[in-house]
């Protein structure tokens, strides 16, 4: 009697290959999907509008009408690691209080953090006290480089500005940083 020919894959082979292919696809998916979210988040970092707005806030802080007190300097250089800059007579004098208020309102400024040029200390502060800062700020600070090399313009400080914007009827935060030359 002629032996029946049984070409083809056994069930076990098919199952092994299917599991292998599925494992590869799920690995690709789990690695690729978070990248899309990260890309969308980073669209809101240092875009042209935020950078421009940060420039004018930097100009305000660099002006003679900014009150750069010893307390502020100690907060920035000490363990506090930052100083929130608000539009009042603690930080500004003369017309600049009004101008500051108008700029903050027009640009949608939520918070302005004045920190050292090197971001390492502020990063440690934000990551060790996450409840004091927004989650978006923490992500942005982790995304930023350390700026460990000195500034080419001899700037000792920088600002990190948090903006509140609206997109597709949802509020979100945008971030930008710029160096501040101030003695």
């Amino acid at each position, binding site marked *: 009697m002629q032996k029946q020919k049984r070409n083809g894959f056994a069930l076990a082979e098919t199952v092994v290959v299917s599991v292998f292919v599925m494992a590869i696809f799920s690995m690709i998916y789990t690695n690729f999907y978070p990248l899309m979210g990260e890309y969308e988040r980073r669209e809101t970092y240092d875009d042209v509008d935020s950078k421009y707005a940060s420039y*004018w806030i930097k100009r305000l802080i660099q002006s003679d009408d900014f009150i750069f007190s010893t307390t502020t300097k100690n907060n920035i250089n000490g363990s506090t690691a930052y100083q929130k800059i608000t539009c009042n007579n603690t930080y500004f004098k003369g017309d600049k209080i009004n101008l500051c208020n108008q700029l903050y309102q*027009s640009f949608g400024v939520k918070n302005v953090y004045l920190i050292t040029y090197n971001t390492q200390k502020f990063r440690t502060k934000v990551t060790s006290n996450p409840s004091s800062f927004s989650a978006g700020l923490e992500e942005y600070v982790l995304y930023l480089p350390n700026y460990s090399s000195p500034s080419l313009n001899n700037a000792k400080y920088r600002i990190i500005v948090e903006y509140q914007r609206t997109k597709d009827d949802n509020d979100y935060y945008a971030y930008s940083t710029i160096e501040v030359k101030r003695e």
Partner: protein
Amino acid sequence: MKIKNEKGFTIVEILITFILVIILTVSMYSSVAAYKNKQQLESYREKIITYKNLLTKEIQDDLIMNELVQAQTSKSGNFFYVTMTFRNGTTKQLVVKRQLANETQDDSFMISYGGIDYPIPTFGSSKNEYNRKEEDFRINNIDINTNNQLLTIYIGFYHPNFSTRYAIDIVCPINFA
């Protein structure tokens, strides 16, 4: 006797394969069509953002590098004008035209800055009830003023597929010292 070669697909195998391929194609069609539509919208969005950023940067560069000392705004018919004078004595004019389609005219939008035209991207159009052309991408609203020593230029764009309204939104202190 020579053994007959019976290798090949049976009709049942071919039928099952065809049915599987058809089911897969049909199930993928809607998602592929959705992706194609999304890709087209993304390309529109990219063009809008590029246009907005290009023009915004041109104006911002002048405001930052040349320093605005004076700004005059005016409106005549469908035209809005901003004449900016910089610290080095040079002046540049921003002209924005917003003519919406009506019984006798098509949509007509135009932005020029420093004598250079920045043509607004077009993404198709439709006709209004008077058979006049209405652009899909249009200048929605314009707000240009100089209050409290602050020049504000807001040119809002609208496209029916984007709930987000993209805008050229520039604020600059006048004669900042």
